[in-house]
């Protein structure tokens, strides 16, 4: 398990590199590596842009015979008041393309979003080996 803090653009790059290293160790296929790193990049940037920073946690998880990479992005930012809206393609509050959350959900196998308006947001994603 690895804990990283996200406070600057450089940290987003570091998160990408660490996630890639773990994905390679785990034996994810090249396409799956690329997908999970891209998702990590989107989510880390969300944490930075919408909450001004937060934490990323990378861990290897096991479910029976399958192993997977779990990423948890947490922040103490303003949170999200309308989860459905936040997960809609093209909806953006930060001036982006609005694909960060909805797009990264399609890149991983499991995606959960917990948010408490005013308290913060936790996004957990998992990519399983095939």
């Amino acid at each position, binding site marked *: 398990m690895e804990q990283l803090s996200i406070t600057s653009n*450089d940290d*987003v790059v570091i998160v990408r590199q660490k996630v890639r290293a773990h994905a390679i160790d785990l034996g994810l296929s090249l396409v799956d590596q*690329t997908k999970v790193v891209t998702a990590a990049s989107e989510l880390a940037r969300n944490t930075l842009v919408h909450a001004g920073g937060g934490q990323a946690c990378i861990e290897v998880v096991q479910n029976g015979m399958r192993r997977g990479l779990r990423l948890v992005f947490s922040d103490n930012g303003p949170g999200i008041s309308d989860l459905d809206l936040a997960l809609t393609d093209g909806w953006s509050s930060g001036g982006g393309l609005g694909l960060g959350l909805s797009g990264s959900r399609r890149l991983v196998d499991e995606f959960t979003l917990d948010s408490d308006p005013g308290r913060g947001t936790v996004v957990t994603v998992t990519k399983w080996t095939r």
Partner: protein
Amino acid sequence: MDRVPILKIGDVLLVSIQGDLDDQSVLTLQEDLAERVVATGAVGVIIDITAVEIVDSFVGRMLSTIAGMSRMLDAETIVVGMRPAVAITLVELGLSLGGLRTALDLEKGIALLGRTASAPLDDLSAVGQ
């Protein structure tokens, strides 16, 4: 912060992105390119992403923006060398990069630029004579 070098070959600008760029460098590149297109009067911009391992929505938006800007400045943008895994991920992410022209590699990119750019140029020179 490392700046991505912009090379000029004839009337084409060539950018080869190496390694993992942070968001600020991406924005800097976008500004630098627009300036160079105006300063050099380039007719084409080729962005080589052969060495790029991931393109997320931020970089994707930068590519689209550069294409849109250079079109307004009368230059054609071609992105070359996108890896299969990157392309698959972009499709999954929902990024269509509409309006962006692509080629498999640098050579094909230059050829594509030649095909589209040479026609109107020839017409103009004909008028001039």
